[in-house]
């Protein structure tokens, strides 16, 4: 085999890369597809805030000695409820999201700073792609089809909500619920703070390339999967952390398309 190919295949011959890469590809593709609706419904700030809102749940779980994933999901659920309530009853604008999430972040900081940094919080925030095992892969393979069925079922209703400017509140709630699942899944690989890169980055790039929503979703999923593979290659050969590298790889297409491509549909 030619040396360059061998060099490219090097990471994949390691036993620890396979499951982590597979999980990140599958989860990233689903998260990016959901990210398209997050962008289209103008909810990227909610996505960013949601991942920050996990923080108190992660810290509390760590302090209480319960599985950190349960704390993360609980934190996400509380953050999603706070965002939804603030958007519905305070204001649909981003400032209400900030008002809802900042106290949660503050609570997490108080808990985290009340003693030694709780174990596991670092991985939960910044991820550990290569720590994924077969159980993580199976979880992703079970959850992803469920998400895809939900997306397929809701696709036309979500489209219609923009065409008619109707059902906004219900559709925003639906997208935030999907976002919770996407964030929980992506956070397992990339961590809470970097998960948003896989949700928003590929969708943002795809938005510049696609004329139809369905095309945008497929493109975003493809870009996310490619970002995961390229990120692991780069991280392996550069000897740097895989999670942040994947996050950067997921954002590069968005930055490049923003600089090089006009938005396909303009008002």
């Amino acid at each position, binding site marked *: 085999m030619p040396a360059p190919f061998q060099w490219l295949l090097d990471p994949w011959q390691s036993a620890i890369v396979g499951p982590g890469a597979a999980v990140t590809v599958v989860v990233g593709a689903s998260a990016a597809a959901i990210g398209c609706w997050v962008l*289209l419904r103008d909810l990227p700030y909610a996505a960013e805030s949601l991942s920050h809102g996990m923080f108190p749940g992660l810290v509390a779980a760590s302090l209480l000695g319960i599985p950190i994933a349960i704390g993360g999901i609980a934190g996400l659920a509380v953050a999603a409820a706070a965002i939804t309530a603030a958007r519905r009853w305070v204001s649909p604008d981003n400032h209400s999201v900030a008002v809802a999430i900042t106290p949660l972040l503050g609570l997490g900081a108080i808990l985290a700073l009340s003693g030694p940094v709780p174990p596991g919080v670092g991985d939960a925030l910044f991820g550990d792609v290569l720590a994924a095992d077969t159980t993580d892969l199976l979880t992703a393979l079970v959850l992803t089809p469920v998400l895809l069925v939900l997306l*397929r*079922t809701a*696709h*036309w*209703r979500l*489209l*219609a909500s*923009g*065409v*008619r*400017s109707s059902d906004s509140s219900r559709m925003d709630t639906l997208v935030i619920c999907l976002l919770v699942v996407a964030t929980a899944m992506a956070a397992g690989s990339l961590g809470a703070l970097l998960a948003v890169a896989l949700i928003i980055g590929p969708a943002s790039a795809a*938005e510049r390339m*696609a*004329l*139809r*929503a369905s*095309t*945008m979703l497929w493109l975003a999923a493809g870009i996310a999967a490619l970002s995961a593979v390229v990120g692991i290659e780069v991280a392996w050969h550069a000897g740097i952390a895989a999670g942040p590298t994947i996050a950067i790889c997921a954002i590069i297409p968005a930055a490049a398309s923003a600089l090089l491509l006009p*938005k*396909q*549909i*303009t*008002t």
Partner: protein
Amino acid sequence: MVPISAQSAQPAVLVEELVAGYGGTPALTGLDFVAAPGERVALLGPNGGGKTTLIRTLQGDLTPISGTFTLRGIVGHVPQKSSGRNDWPVTALDVAICGTLDALPWWRVPGKAQRRAAREALEAVGLGERSSTPYGELSGGQQRRTQVAAALAGGASVLLLDEPFAGLDAVAADRLEKLLATLADSGTTLLIATHDLDQARSWEKVLCLNGEQLAFGPPEAVLTRQTLEATFGSDLLEIPGGGFMAPPHHHHDH
């Protein structure tokens, strides 16, 4: 031209003692009118006079404060130009397909039958060849006709059109006018918010609104100087040589 209404015993739209609004003080009172199948009813009134409130009430968006209304058949809605998003990644066909969703349970996605209905509706409004065009790239008139197609694809027999002619050039307005005439001929009842008195004169009925129902009936009976002054107040423009013109349209949100 009211061939079908003459044949039909049942009204397509029946509104009785309706009071409508957004909670609090009623925005529109004393609504009492009937439209037969195939009739075009002009909703005339100044900005904020209650045209959109009436349309939103009949559409089911607003709950009546009191009174009742009955609409026979499926109701379609063509929103104001400014509603909806032009940057949404959809084609004309996608928009028309969206019109079929109301007839489907929430868990069903549009299938072949809905796509066929949407394509036929686009053909009916003269946009068959633009079905793959992004909605945001269609002209204002084409967007309005696409919205009509969406309503037709959903099987609407009563169409509520909110300022459909606003912002259209003469050619586009003429084309839309002919489309509405064709729909009326085929039995569709059209309630059309407009500021154009000439259009209103050419339709079967006129409903004058300004916070309340001021008049309803055939144009020759309703479009008198007295009614128009009550409807538009001092904004009514008198055209030299005879006739009147309603004040120009300004967009409003309710």
